[in-house]
């Protein structure tokens, strides 16, 4: 098992005829991901890497049974494309582009919650269930099917953590890159219960970053989990970030620093890793070693 994507996922690539669309369609197909369709309005009827191109996602869903979509389109078109995917019944939408207007992300989240769609990103490298399905732009090299789920804001840290887990023999069930934009389609709290409910996942690594409040907010979800959680945060030594005015302070209080995140995670019962290499050990005997 895994979460969100597996060997049955039927993926549509939004913006398949662009440079990045073509390149990553090829990469995903090589990995074994079932890329079943692509969209490019006005170019319906063409083919890219053997994949049929349609004008609308509605057609990809109806004719190819697509249920996952990954976007390679300019940020200003993400809102329209995301609402289209959500309305068409896509259940997982992966937003690769970065620099999406925050007001647009609010609208996307609202539509997604209403229709029960999970949106990942923007500014994400995507997600991978090793050996089954890779949706986005993550390099497959460090990932190996195994026992641990990873949920990370950063793509690059995701790789380092997976590398560590793979080398330790634990391996990964699914690695989810939440994305680097200030407002994300999904948060740690949204993903953690999925790992908790996934029979194959034995533990979860949360990879956080300074800024924002998504790590602190995750504490509630962690407390509800039986599976062990390890937390790694980047930015303990970063210069103190600038506040978004008084309103930011009023809404987010003292949250957003590495300290506040570590404190919240500790309090919720997560193990805290200060180096990548500490991560496997923190699961201790709670998960099988798999060696």
């Amino acid at each position, binding site marked *: 098992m895994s979460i969100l994507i597996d060997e049955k996922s039927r993926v549509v690539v939004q913006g398949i005829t662009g440079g990045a669309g073509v390149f990553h369609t090829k990469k995903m197909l090589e990995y074994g991901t079932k890329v079943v369709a692509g969209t490019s309005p006005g170019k319906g009827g063409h083919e890219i890497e053997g994949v049929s191109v349609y004008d609308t996602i509605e057609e990809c869903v109806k004719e190819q049974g697509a249920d996952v979509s990954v976007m390679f389109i300019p940020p200003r078109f993400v809102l329209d494309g995301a609402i289209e995917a959500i309305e068409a019944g896509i259940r997982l939408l992966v937003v690769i582009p970065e620099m999406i*207007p925050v007001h647009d992300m609010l609208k996307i989240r609202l539509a997604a919650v209403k229709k029960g769609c999970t949106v990942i990103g923007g500014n994400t490298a995507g997600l991978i269930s090793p050996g089954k399905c890779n949706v986005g732009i993550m390099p497959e090299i460090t990932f190996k099917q195994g026992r641990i789920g990873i949920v990370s804001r*950063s*793509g690059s840290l*995701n790789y*380092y953590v997976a590398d560590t887990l793979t080398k330790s023999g634990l391996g990964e069930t699914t690695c989810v890159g939440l994305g680097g934009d200030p407002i994300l389609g999904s948060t740690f709290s949204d993903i953690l219960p999925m790992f908790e409910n996934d029979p194959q996942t034995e533990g979860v690594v949360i990879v956080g970053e300074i800024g924002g409040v998504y790590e602190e907010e995750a504490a509630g979800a962690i407390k509800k989990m039986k599976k062990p959680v390890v937390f790694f945060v980047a930015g303990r030594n970063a210069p103190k970030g600038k506040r978004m005015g*008084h309103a930011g*302070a009023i809404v987010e209080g003292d949250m957003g620093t590495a300290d506040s995140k570590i404190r919240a995670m500790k309090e919720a019962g997560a193990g805290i890793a200060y180096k990548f290499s500490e991560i496997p050990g923190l699961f201790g005997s709670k998960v099988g070693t798999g060696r």
Partner: protein
Amino acid sequence: MRLFEFEAKKLIKDEGIPVPEGRMAEDVSGVKKIFSELGGAPVVIKSQILAGARGKSGGITFAGTAEQAEEEAGRLLGSKIREFPVKNVLIEEKVKIAEEFYLGVTIDRMRYKIVLIACAEGGVEIEEVAKSSPEKIKKLAFDANEDFYPHHGLVIARRLGLSGDKMKEFGKIASKLFKAFKKYDAKLLEINPLVYTDDGRWVAVDTRMSIDEDALFRQKTLVELGVEGRHEEGELTPRELEAREAGIPYLDLDGNIGMFPGGAGMGIASIDLITDLGGSPANFMDSGGGPTPERLARMLKLLVDNPKVDVIFGARFGGVSRCDVFAEGVIMYLKDEKPEKPMIMRMTGNMWKEGLEMFEKAKAESPGLFEKIKIYGIETPIEDVAKEAVEAADEISAGKGVVR
């Protein structure tokens, strides 16, 4: 991206929110005229810098006569407030304050809401009020597709204890502020203090606005204001400016190790890594996202050209940004610029073997270029590579007589 006070005030004034009568001045020549245009009554002179706490830092001053105004403006213009040079000042009528309120709109990222916030105790201590008496902070949250109706303004005004016309007018200002927030794709728009005057008027005495850089493509008015390419707070260092012009996410730090780390997450994590080992990073950089060799060479040049940098620490995890492309960019830079500073790097991920082979080949061709360059592969843990970088940097520091 933060706007200057005078810009933010112009925008909310256009929505119909009352602001003090005022004029901008870039030099003292027109100040006396401005003083008389404003009615010859006492004025406040406010340095226009992208930083808060201007009052405490001496960036806001008062004048009762035209001569005084000229003198005070002259004192501010050209000076530095909180290290930011004052290029212009806003001269405004001095408002007779009876009460100070806070009114702001921002985004609650945790709940995906747009939040209207109000407090009857405005002024600079509003954050303290939020901590010590949270019940005094009144909030109304909106979904992105929810409209702001007139009653919302009344509800929040009532929660502050206002009544009658005072309540109604406050409500209208809240409505206009919310409208401006959405119209301009703002991330923050606050009036603090929103003043109720002696003679029963509401006036937005100070305003702060941060807009969403990523939405500028649809914000003609903001682009015409000239806001593109600004920092959230303060101004860019020359190197940050250079990086921004080249499209490289970059921040100057104080140390001597140039950081060349891959994506943004690793950019932050590598600062921890180096710092934990006793080293001192010279910068934050996001060199991920699949840069071309030319761009990688440009990034490296930015780091090496920094006189504070003694050593370059590199960590490439080949994802979209493949290791062979990374090697090509680094070799291109080495050949073009022949740098003298040591570089200690690690490559893993997509095409790391190919990348290492390219380095070997280049080294065989021009061994002189590689005297101070070390490249490790997947078999060497990143912590070891970082440690070597820190030691090399310490050695050079010590040689310079710098104690870190």
